[in-house]
């Protein structure tokens, strides 16, 4: 018995168990991230996972969803998109300004509400002096003469366009676009969010 214990402690089995558990954990993370990317659809830089939350999902999709968007709504209840890069593939950063251009009548169709929220790179909202943390269908957005709407995403207020300003953090940031009770055009994929244009 004592011999067995001595062998057990000196053989490296314990280190092996710990190493195996850590590798298993990391492998699981890598696989879940890969599955998460595989089920993500990205259009114009906006990424969404439409499958999450559905009871019929298999083991891999369930795990990938639980990791990417824990206990998230099903897509027909609420559509969520995230964006971390602009239209040219560059990481979003508060050092730049961005414009989201919605053509006339092309704000997201919904039966509840929509909103756009910036967060820091990790996913937390960041304080800003104007206390405006999102814009959405309840914001009094100004229309251009052709009926289109431009949203100005920048750290400092855009002069002349304060009404359509969404303050963003100074550093790298993420955007979250949420449409609750998304309209039919979102559910069938014909509606697309506009590109995030970096302002010149």
């Amino acid at each position, binding site marked *: 018995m004592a011999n067995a214990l001595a062998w057990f402690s000196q053989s*490296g089995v314990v280190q092996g168990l710990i190493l195996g558990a850590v590798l298993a954990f990391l492998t699981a993370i890598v696989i879940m991230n890969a599955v998460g990317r595989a089920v993500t659809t990205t259009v114009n830089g906006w990424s969404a996972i439409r499958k999450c*939350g559905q009871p019929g999902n298999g083991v891999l999709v369930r795990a990938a969803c639980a990791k990417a968007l824990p206990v998230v709504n099903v897509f027909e209840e609420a559509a*969520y998109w995230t964006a971390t890069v602009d239209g040219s593939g560059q990481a979003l950063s508060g050092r730049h300004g961005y414009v989201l251009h919605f053509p006339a009548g092309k704000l997201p169709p919904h039966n*509840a509400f929509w909103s756009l929220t910036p967060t820091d790179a990790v996913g937390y909202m960041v304080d800003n002096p104007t206390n405006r943390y*999102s814009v959405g269908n309840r914001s009094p957005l100004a229309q251009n003469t052709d009926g289109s709407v431009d949203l100005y995403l920048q750290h400092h207020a855009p002069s002349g366009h304060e009404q359509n300003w969404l303050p963003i953090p100074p550093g790298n940031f993420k955007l979250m676009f949420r449409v609750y009770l998304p309209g039919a055009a979102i559910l069938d994929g014909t509606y697309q969010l506009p590109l995030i244009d970096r302002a010149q």
Partner: protein
Amino acid sequence: MNRLILKYGRPLTAVILAVFAWVIYRRIANGDGIIPLVIAAVIVWALGAPAFIYLWPRLTVNGYKRAILKHGFGEGPIPVNTLYAVPGTSSPSTATSRGSLMATGADDLLYVGGWLDLSKGPQILHVPDMSGRYFSVQFTDPSKSTNFAYVGKRTTGTEAGDYFLSGPGWKGTVPNGMTQISSPTHSALVIGRVFVESDSDLPTAYALAKQIRLAPLKQ
């Protein structure tokens, strides 16, 4: 803490792997065998990776369960079969605290949270008349982290109603005027959301959120 792990996950992982590499290097340098170590590691790795993936949804939902039953959202633990309405919407000052049910933050929704336990019998979910206001009550299976039922504007409308929640294997008669929701498991995570139009609408929305309630079936 979570924030630090999220932010420094990669360097942290690199450090841990470097420590392992050093341990193995020392064993080889000292002339100790590494075969038992490698065999143990490979077995645990091969069994552990699928196990982690399988259990991940459960671990995630259990995090919410613990948050609800042990900590609550600002006013102490929330007992099973009780719904708690968080009085305010998320903002940066609260989003990092336990007050926020969802890390994504939403300043247009009030959240209601609770843990459902049907092992001692059915429960009844009451929702007030929302008069067209957007709301939803999501029921999440704790083993899969998928949503097996919704009550709300999309699925049931915004009129007042009572919903009969029964666990697996329950037999009996559903009371008149109630819609049955069969839960695939005895427990479930319940997340309610009530739309807030504006700051001045907050008291109305909160009063409605508080009326989303669970009660046991009266014998």
